[in-house]
């Protein structure tokens, strides 16, 4: 008993300065973090991508003595696990590598379950919107994709409203937005850009759009029209890519998918291509973020890892970023070059989501979709 008590006291004494230290750690360079991280010995990361296995090797090569424990888990599971652990008073994970930002913002950020950290080494290189409230590492897409073999003259769609016309009835695909957050975010973004949707309507039909009662704007009207034009919902992006991209298809559908899946074209026998010249936009860019869990047991190693995952100053980002450097995904660091044969970030006609705004409007759009099913 006495021994346990003294252990508790000892632990409390150790924990206090560690808490105070966490504030100071934010300003340290990787060289200054390393000795503290070595003392901590390890760092645990939940990762949305299984490519964390490659990061593990690269990180341990770069910083021997700090053991990286990587667990791949979907964003939803990460949120569930962190919430449950912290409710039980368990603080076991250090770093979250996570997407699904609207939910992260409305759950983890609001309840102070994560803390933001921006490595000083790269802070000057990033736009402000990528630094708060949480640090963005890279951007992924959900954009309009078509079959470039079946449509050799370019995308058959130049205005989103075309998708609601009889010609495309039953020929527009997307993964069910009531099943996957990113697609719900896409529709939410369309709803949030009602003015642009109204302008696009006028550009196509030469008259002002009439919005039905009960709908909030041209964006909602588009969503309704899309569903009523027999939008086909799918369970996952595998089925989507196969349906849109099949090189042998005669009259293939179009759909909202992931730009970077184009890199599998050759391997899978697809002809996926992004439809970029679309008004008002062809889809969304959404962030994958790196953040530190509240009361992380290894605060210095956590910071060292986040710093590492932003890569070095080379155009590829070096071993810390290379595993995530795929054409069609975009690094937020300006020194890392976009892939040569894909549309540059600046030229991609996609809206970049604002997670806070999306989070606020998402519930309403989710309800709208349910009534349209």
């Amino acid at each position: 008993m006495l021994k346990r008590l003294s252990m508790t006291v000892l632990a409390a004494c150790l924990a206090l300065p560690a808490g105070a230290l966490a504030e100071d750690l934010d300003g340290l360079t990787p060289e200054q973090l390393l000795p503290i991280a070595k003392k901590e010995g390890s760092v645990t990361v939940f990762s949305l991508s299984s490519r964390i296995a490659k990061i593990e090797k690269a990180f341990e090569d770069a910083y021997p003595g700090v053991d990286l424990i990587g667990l791949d888990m979907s964003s939803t599971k990460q949120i569930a696990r962190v919430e449950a652990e912290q409710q039980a008073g368990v603080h076991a994970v250090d770093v979250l590598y996570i997407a699904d930002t609207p939910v992260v913002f409305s759950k983890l950020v609001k309840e102070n379950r994560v803390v933001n950290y921006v490595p000083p080494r790269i802070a000057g290189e990033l736009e402000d919107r990528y630094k708060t409230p949480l640090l963005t590492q890279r951007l992924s897409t959900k954009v309009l994709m078509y079959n470039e073999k079946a449509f050799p003259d370019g995308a058959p769609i130049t205005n989103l409203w075309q998708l609601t016309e009889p010609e495309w009835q039953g020929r527009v695909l997307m993964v069910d937005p009531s099943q996957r957050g990113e697609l719900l975010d896409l529709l939410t973004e369309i709803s949030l850009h009602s003015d642009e949707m109204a302008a696009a309507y006028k550009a196509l039909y030469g008259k002002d759009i009439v919005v039905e009662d009960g709908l909030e704007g041209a964006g909602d009207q588009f969503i309704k029209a899309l569903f009523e034009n027999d939008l086909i919902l799918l369970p996952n992006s595998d089925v989507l890519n196969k349906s849109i991209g099949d090189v042998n298809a005669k009259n293939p559908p179009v759909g909202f998918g992931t730009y970077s899946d184009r890199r599998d074209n050759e391997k899978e026998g697809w002809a996926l291509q992004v439809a970029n010249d679309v008004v008002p936009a062809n889809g969304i860019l959404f962030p994958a973020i790196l953040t530190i869990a509240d009361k992380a047991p290894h605060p210095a190693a956590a910071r060292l890892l986040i710093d590492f995952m932003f890569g070095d100053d080379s155009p590829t980002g070096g071993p810390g970023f290379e595993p995530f450097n795929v054409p069609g995904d975009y690094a937020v660091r300006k020194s890392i070059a976009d892939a040569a044969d894909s549309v540059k970030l600046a030229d991609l006609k996609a809206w970049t989501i604002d997670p806070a705004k999306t989070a606020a409007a998402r519930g309403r759009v989710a309800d709208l979709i349910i009534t349209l099913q």
Partner: protein
Amino acid sequence: MTSTSLLAPSGSRLLRSGFLLPAALVVIVAVLVVAPLARILLTTLTPEGMAAWKAVLASRLSANLWWWPLLDTMVLGFAVAGGCLLIGGFLAWLVVLTDVPGRRILGLMGSLPYMIPSFAAALAWGTLFRNSRLGGSAGFFETNGLAIPDWLAWGIVPTAIVLVAHYYSLAYTIIAAALGSVGADLVEAGQMAGAKRPRIFFGIVLPVVTPALVAAASLTFAGAVANFAAPALLGLPVRMQTLSTRLFGMIETGQNERGFVLALLLIVVSALFLFLSDRLVSGRRAFITVTGKGGRTKRFPLGAWRWPLFALAVLIGLLTTVLPVLVLAASSLAPQSGALFSNWTLHFWIGEGGGEIAQGQAGIFRNPVLIDALWTTIRLGLVVAFTTMVLGLALAYTIVQRKGTLLATVLSQLAFLPLLVPSIAFAAAYIALYGAPIGPLPSLYGTFALLVIAASAHNLPFAVQSGRSVLGQISADIEESARLTGASLVRRLFAIVFPLAIRGLFAGAILVFVKMVRDLSLVVLLFTATSPVLSMVAYRYAAEGFMQFANAITLVILVVCLAASFLAHSLQNRVQKWKES
């Protein structure tokens, strides 16, 4: 003096066997099942939770969020349970009670489909029946000029068929175990009394295995109702939503409260049906067939029907077992998932890394994690199967012994519910409840123990249902004679109940083992060790788009499950030597 010495032992025995076991079980079930459920219920009583109740039950959303999915779910549940009883029951009868040729191979094929993930069966369906609705390459029939209408390619009909093809083996396993206990003496008695064959079947065999039929129906119903892969793959393209796809979607898009409300409502509805089926069984007399004497199995001669019925059984096996396995195997060999039967390569199994294929990934047997994962998986499966069966046996024993009492009803209802709770909610509740130290008990967070406890609770229904169906047939007089000679409860369980019920127990243990080895969601939330289980390795590959590797791992899992079932089978034959006459 004499009176006290007479009273004391009986008093303590009463305390030991009459009171202690049920009391302990009530506590265990409360901790394992009621507490997490209560926690999920509590999260729906917050303001957001109340809003979710309202949205689900009384708003403009309710029709699409609750009523239509409920209808689809119930139609699926009953259709699948019915189909499974028919096919599973037919095969079990054929294999156990007749002289059909090739019984061993038929039995093996009958127990396989449950070990193949249901998405494989759905994929197999797509390979044959996919039509042009989604674009992309059409299925076998349309390619060969046979137009497939939407209702046959997508929606509730194919979903039900695929789920029957997947779950009938669950029914087969349980019913076959129960039929195994229909002794030759019963059937011979019927024959001597001049009963015709249909009469023997409907008058003797069927009533005796009714508890097994009910157990099989409840488990297949629950399985169909909770299945996500098949309705998602085959239902979504025509906007068919079931409660499980709705529930998954709600949790996946961060609307947890609504998801939990749907889960709780699903539990209430299913519990209602279970309660009714319970009444159906307990309203009639129980038949004791396991008497411990002369338990040979009598086989009916099929005569001229021998080969036609064999052909029918083989056909069922081919369609539900060989076809999905073939699709899985092909997709682990084909470089392009769109062209399953061309350019086969063994690269995804044994290839060296660094080449052009699969971005330089080496084959699964060159993955150093694989062997580790294999052992972790087997260890986890065995431990959970064991703990679940011990707990399930104790529960089933108490439920059967006290049949008709309130205690038995409550226990049997509670023990059934975990199957319907979504794993992610279940696991989260477990971390929140037992992650922190409780009083003198240490925190279980991150321990193997927590995973085993949660998994045992989650798989309890298999153990209890299969245990009940067999225990219900064991004669009370053997146990009573043992009790009279002073055998303790533990001794009676191990010397009498266990050997007699072993068929049913192993049947349940296999189901738990298979579920545990295949199921990912519980493991991924509760497991903190870095050495992963096989399903996590498969997930890792699949998440990177390497479906071939993932399918290869699925086949490895299938082999592990098969090996386990062989082992169980040979063990049970060793224990029950008297069966082979």
